C-alpha cells in the first residue's frame, strides 16, 4: 500500500479525444452548412431565371 501509485494521468489524452470527436463532427456540420448555402444561392438564381423566362 505504501508504494502503491495512483492511476495514470490521462487528462491530456481525454482532451485530445474530445477535440478529435468535436472537431471532426464540427467540420462535417460546417461542410453541410456550406453546401446548403450554395444550394440556396442556386435556388435564388433559378428563381430569377424562371422569372425572366415566364
Amino acid at each position, binding site marked *: 500500500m505504501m508504494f502503491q501509485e495512483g492511476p495514470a494521468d490521462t487528462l491530456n489524452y481525454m482532451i*485530445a479525444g474530445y477535440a*478529435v470527436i468535436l472537431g*471532426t*463532427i464540427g467540420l462535417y456540420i460546417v461542410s*453541410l452548412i456550406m*453546401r446548403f448555402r450554395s444550394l440556396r444561392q*442556386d*435556388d435564388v438564381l*433559378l428563381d430569377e431565371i424562371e422569372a425572366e*423566362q415566364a
Partner: protein
Amino acid sequence: MTEFFQTLLIPFQYEYMVRAMWVSALIGGTCGFLSSFVTLKGWSLMGDALSHAVVPGVAVAYILGLPFSLGAFVAGLLAAGAMAFIKAKSRIREDATIGIVFTFINVVTGAIWARPIWNTWWTWDPRLVTATIMELIYIAYMMLRQGIDDPDRRARFSAVYGIVGFISVPITFASIRIFRTIHPVVVGSSDPTALGAFDMNAEMRVAFFFSLFTFTLIYITLLWYRLRLQQQKEKIEERKLRALST
C-alpha cells in the same frame, strides 16, 4: 508423343469424369450465351459479384449438410435482391458519408486511447487493421460514386460495391473473437473462466450505453440533414434541366 496423348485421355476412363465433362460443356455453353447477354446489358459487374456472393451460400450449405447448389442458389438470390433493393430504394450514400466520419473518429480516438494503455499509438492488431480497412472501403465507395456520371450505372455499381464492402463490417466486429489480439473483448467476454477478464464494470457500462445513445442521436440528426441536403440538390438539378430545356 503417343504416351503423352494417352496420359491426357486417362480421365475419360472414369464414368464420373465423362459425366463431369458433359455437364461442364452444357453449363459452359449456357453460361456463355447468358454472359454475352449480361455483358451487353452492362451487368457484367453484377455477374462477377454474384459469382462471389454464392460462396458463403456454399459454405453454409456444407455446414448444414445441404446440397451445395441449394446454398449457392439461395445466396445468389439474396445478393441479387439486395443489390436491386439498394440500387432502387436506399440512400446508402448519405449513410456512408456519416459512416466515414464516425469510423475516422473511431480509428483516431482508438489510437489516442491506446497510447497510455498499450504505450503505442498504433499496432498491427487485427481489430485496428480491419477497422482501418473498413474506413478505406467506405472512402473508396464515395470515390467510386464520384467517378461515374451515368446515374443508372452509378446506382448499380454502388449497390454491388456496397454489398461486397459491407462484408468488412462483421469481419471487423468478429476480428477480436476470431484472432489472437491485444484488443479487449468487452461486449460478451470470450472465456468466462479466463484469469483477469476484460468485461465492463458497472461504471463502464453506464458510460458505454450513454455514449451509444448520444452518438445514435447525433447520427440520426446528421442523417436527417444529409438527406434533406440531397433532396434539395435533386430538386435544384431538376429545375436546372427544365431551365436549360426551355
